[in-house]
């Protein structure tokens, strides 16, 4: 895209996205869009550690579940507004990130991925086990408080649509800032060569941990919003290894380590799976996930830099080479 066209396309896209709820009133379609926004946001968060930091985490459902369960259980037990409960959830997710990160960052390659899978499965098992507190496999329905913004409960899906969009916009700006800030470059150095970065004085352990903590907080925020959008949470829905994998896959398919990759990936994956479910779901269970898996395989083999690399030739090269202003 040449700069003049970019000036034009981006505002047009933003206006179009903002206008969608004015024309689309079917809740299911809005729900699909909300899921696109949430997965894009989580992808952006995951990308901080998985893409820029090159630590392939397959355990981000831990943070999603902590966000969702903390906010919901505070409402259930204490009638505390999720605006506060959600922040507590994000803080707990950051603590969990430190607990997981401290030992796991010593591991490299597949060992790191395996350890994060184990962390996710431990979280799920605990949520299932402590039934008295979490309701176990039955899950927790969120008690209805009427149309009440303080409890993130709205009569129309459009409100959730704008909240999810707001979250996506905020996280996008944060990640964009980080990409160009010092820590973004340190992360890039860690990705290129951890040992070399260390020898140049980059505190790689701290850089990775900071990215992981921020990434956890972002995914936890998505967990909170998801819980109140859907109105119900259970361990298999919010703490499954499949969720962790999908967060990573969104980024991989879109374009790992890029700003727009997670957004493109979320749009492609969520639309692909939801549309196949809609048209083939009743006919053939599993079809949507077969396509999802095939898409992942095709991208890995043919387009390892993700679908965003299809647009490379339209993109001005200037932003890619960071070095000029450093």
């Amino acid at each position, binding site marked *: 895209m040449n700069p003049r066209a970019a000036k034009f396309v981006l505002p047009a896209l933003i206006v179009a996205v903002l206008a969608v709820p004015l024309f689309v009133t079917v809740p299911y379609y809005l729900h699909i869009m909300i899921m696109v926004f949430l997965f894009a946001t989580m992808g952006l968060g995951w990308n901080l550690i998985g893409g820029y930091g*090159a630590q*392939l985490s397959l355990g981000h459902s831990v943070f999603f579940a902590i966000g969702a369960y903390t906010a919901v259980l505070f409402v259930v037990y204490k009638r505390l507004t999720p605006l506060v409960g959600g922040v507590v959830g994000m803080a707990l997710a950051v603590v969990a990130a430190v607990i997981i990160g401290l*030992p796991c960052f*010593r*591991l490299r*390659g*597949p*060992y790191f*991925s*395996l*350890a994060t*899978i*184990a*962390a996710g*499965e*431990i979280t799920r*098992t*605990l949520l*299932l*086990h402590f039934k008295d507190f979490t309701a176990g496999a039955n899950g927790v329905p969120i008690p209805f408080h009427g149309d009440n913004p303080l409890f993130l409960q709205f009569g129309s899906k459009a409100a959730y649509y704008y909240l999810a969009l707001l979250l996506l916009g905020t996280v996008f700006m944060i990640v964009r800032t980080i990409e160009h800030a010092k820590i973004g470059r340190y992360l890039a150095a860690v990705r290129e060569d951890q040992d070399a970065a260390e020898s140049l004085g980059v505190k790689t352990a701290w850089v990775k941990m900071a990215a992981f903590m921020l990434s956890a907080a972002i995914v936890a925020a998505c967990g909170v919003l998801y819980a109140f959008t859907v109105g119900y949470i259970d361990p298999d829905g919010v703490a499954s*290894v499949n969720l962790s*994998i999908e967060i*990573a*896959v969104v980024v*991989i398919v879109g374009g790992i380590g890029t700003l727009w990759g997670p957004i493109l990936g979320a749009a492609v994956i969520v639309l692909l799976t939801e549309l196949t479910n809609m048209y083939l779901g009743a006919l*053939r*269970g*599993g*079809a949507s*996930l*077969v396509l*999802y*898996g*095939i*898409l*992942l*395989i095709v991208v*890995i*083999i043919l387009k*390892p830099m993700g679908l965003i690399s299809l647009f490379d030739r339209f993109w001005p090269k200037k932003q890619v080479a960071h070095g000029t202003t450093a």
Partner: protein
Amino acid sequence: MNLTIFLQTTINGLMVGGVYALVAVGLTLIFGVMKIVNFAQGEFVMLGMYVSWMLATFVHIAPYPGLVLVGIVMFGIGYLVFKLLIIHVIGKPDESFILLTLGLSIVLQNLILMIFGAEYLSVSTPIKDAAFHLGGLTLSVPRVIAFLVALLMVVALTILLNKTDLGRAMRATAESREVATLLGINPIKCFTIAFAIGIVLAGTAGVLLTPMFYVFPGVGTLFNLTAFVVVVLGGMGSVPGALLGGLIIGIVEALSSTYISLDLAQLFTFLIFLAVLFIRPSGLFGGATK
């Protein structure tokens, strides 16, 4: 503590552990030779179960007599998967393998769901409920057979790796691909065979499980995670390590589900896993991987 219950639980765990070992040995063989973690290993257990179920249902070949047939089918599947998919990511970073095999696992699991539906299928053989009695202990025949065949396969693999030219070539490739190439070994051929044998071992585990386990599309997931744990516990790439690791995990799971809580059994498996990763990442038989 009741001694009979304790012994019975331990023996049950040991028998299941044999099957875990078989799945894990396949995984560790692939890792040892190719340095990749196959995240779809459990799905090949599931495929083995479905092939075995189809043989039993449509052509009336019971699981045990059909073992060799399933093995041949699984070798073919492994060969095809390697030639169609795996070969494209050889020499690429670890992430490519992880994601490719994750994608493969999603496709296989849901393809089977599309074809066979989500129903729990089972093979009814008279042997299913047969059991040996020893003192107060009961040994279910399918479990004993599974355990013994699993041991036999591990021994056969060890002989293959240590006493044949093919095995030596595979071990040389595992040590150093470059040196192996200089010695006239074709590393891609070794990779193909190692991968296909790994898949055969997973499929065989599936056959052995069919008489005592329900067959359903998600069954592989249960074995996937356990197999990772076993392999890391035994030391990535170590065949005796995978065998011992499988038996240990089988016993730990059985004991914790009997004495602590059924739904926490997996928790202990994962805690052991993390402990090994952090304290001794090379595993019990580490060094074999280097």
